[in-house]
């Protein structure tokens, strides 16, 4: 693993400056870190969402690499077509170069509306990386809940009100769902741990077959915290165990980073306005529920790691 200075010198900027994502947006940081994962040329696809609308407004584009946006739910099937065209034309000798392929989607485009297309592309075994920049709600259309929105978070379609305390369901474990496809490489990462994320991206691009990166990407507009705290919030997600840094390499689960001692979940919840209502006296029991879920998930992951190590 090189240092970030070396990486940025070796790998040309792929998502250029001038895009219109918010200052302090986690998505562009995530995309730039993930695109440092290969020195080979890359073709990128994005689902409809913040990343797409803010990086391509005709006649401008922030992409310095070939880029396609098709629709909301189909970035995985679109990249399937591109990667297949590449194989077809390479076989005929019309293309000589080694090219890598990556599809980006937000949590809405991945966990929800794009899940079928993603599952299909993984099952078919296309040689590509899928990167979900997971900001835990439909941010592009003003913070509506998705199946990645955590329990208790207030969104515009799961608001906190007089009788409701934000989202009533726990989030979907997409990483585990993807791992169940038995693809070569699956990982969870986030931008505060850039070394971890770039290493995972390198593994994902190097994998023979589909690879999946689930990257927690802060959205200060939706999560309600000051924009300069993006990286700090990411760190807290890792240190509280809210977002475990794990990878599943050829079926073997592994923690790539374990905090020495997991901080209480309040430290992640407290700085974010979307959880403010949880700190009212009558809702405090919900925080205990969240802590319990995080502890259970951690134990479950430890079991996965232990059990999968025994399979050769």
């Amino acid at each position, binding site marked *: 693993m090189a240092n970030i200075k070396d990486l940025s010198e070796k790998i040309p900027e792929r998502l250029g400056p001038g895009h219109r994502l918010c200052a302090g947006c986690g998505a562009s940081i995530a995309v730039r870190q993930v695109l440092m994962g290969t020195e080979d040329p890359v073709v990128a696809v994005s689902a409809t969402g913040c990343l797409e609308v803010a990086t391509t407004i005709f006649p401008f584009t922030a992409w310095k690499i070939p880029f396609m946006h098709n629709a909301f739910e189909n970035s995985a099937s679109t990249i399937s*077509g591109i990667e297949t065209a590449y194989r077809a034309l390479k076989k005929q000798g019309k293309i000589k170069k080694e090219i890598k392929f990556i599809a980006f989607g937000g949590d809405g485009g991945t966990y929800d509306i794009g899940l079928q297309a993603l599952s299909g592309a993984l099952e078919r075994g296309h040689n590509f990386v899928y990167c979900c920049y997971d900001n835990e709600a439909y941010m592009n259309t003003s913070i509506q809940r998705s199946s990645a929105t955590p329990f208790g978070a207030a969104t515009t379609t799961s608001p906190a009100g007089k009788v409701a305390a934000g989202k009533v369901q726990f989030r979907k474990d997409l990483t585990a769902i993807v791992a169940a496809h038995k693809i070569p490489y699956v990982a969870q990462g986030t931008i505060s741990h850039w070394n971890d994320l770039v290493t995972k991206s390198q593994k994902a691009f190097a994998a023979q077959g589909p690879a999946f990166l689930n990257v927690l990407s802060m959205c200060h507009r939706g999560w309600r915290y000051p924009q300069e705290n993006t990286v700090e919030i990411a760190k807290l997600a890792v240190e509280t165990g809210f977002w475990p840094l794990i990878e599943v390499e050829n079926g073997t689960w592994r923690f790539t980073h374990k905090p020495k001692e997991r901080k209480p979940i309040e430290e992640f919840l407290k700085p974010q306005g979307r959880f403010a209502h949880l700190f009212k006296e009558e809702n405090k029991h919900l925080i205990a529920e969240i802590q319990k879920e995080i502890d259970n998930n951690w134990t479950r992951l430890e079991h996965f790691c232990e059990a999968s190590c025994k399979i050769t």
Partner: protein
Amino acid sequence: MRKVVAMTGDQAAAEAMRQIEPDVVAAYPITPQTEIVMGFAQFVADGRVQTEMIPVESEHSAMSACVGAAASGARTMTATSANGLALMWEIVYIAASTRLPIVMPVVNRALSGPINIHCDHSDTMGARDSGWLQIYCENNQEVYENVIMAIRIAEHKDIRLPVMVCQDGFITSHAVEGIKLYDDKQVKEFIGAYQLEHSLLDIDKPVTYGPLDLQDFYFEHKRQQAEAIKNSLKAIPEIFAEFKKYFGSAYDFIDTYKLDDAELAIVALSSTAGTTKVVIDELRAQGKNVGLLRPRFFRPFPKEKIVRALSGLKAVAILDRSEAFSGQGGALFAEIRSALLDEPKRPLTVNYIYGLGGRDIDLQQIKSVYADLEKIVKAKKVKDLINYLGVR
């Protein structure tokens, strides 16, 4: 070298695809298109084509993958029917607006609901405003030839639009007819090599496809699409001429049968034209001046040709195999009637909606339409503008 082989309409489409040998085919099975996908999958499995086939998990992904492949410079095809086309809908429009020359045989089937697997044109008529070109085939020979021709049409530099090649579900898709097949080499030579100007895989000249297009440009891009459709009316006859030179078959935007001296005519798409021709021969033997106009293309809409062919007639019955729920008749009727409106001397027009959900259209029904036309001419007016043929 030519040979005549017994084939269904689906097999004819698959055979044309084998000879075209696209770089990428992404397809999902649906009745009655299934035999196209099965047939082509076998060609891939037997190594008879080099095509990379993507067995997608839905039609939505089929068209999505086609869009990705076509933007990467691959000659790309798929095929579908009815609900499959409906599931693709969103991406059907994107394929056209991205100006990607995808060719898609569509086996016409009634759109749910209620669910029905048999022929009508509700599926492709619903897609008439999508920006795709639409060719309708009367028989298996036309299916075969139109699929081949569609490649050239889609890829023509003045057109660059996707093309649907439509045939009637079960009526032609599953009916065996003798079709004349052309030599593989000759077909390859006719379609030629394909080179996309701006490919996603040209990593030295990166391009962005599918950007956000707001108030300041979207309208111009839509206007360009309309221009491409207009251009196709000029460019397609070049391809007809070349096809005739290669293979001998003469094509036009419309097909007519005993229309030159006719006073009464039926307008119908696809296989219903065959049934109508039989009735025409019978009525002609009785001294009746009856004829047929069959639009081969619905997009581009061959207005000039249709108007020229129909304007001198006394009465015309336009048959629609789909309901538009507009109270103004089916799509074919509405557009042809509108096209005739500016003619100083125009025929009386009447609409028949028929054959929904695969309901048989028989000789007797066609005869009754010509009989109605005689009454209309006598009365000098149309009593019922919209009629339902063969409904209980």
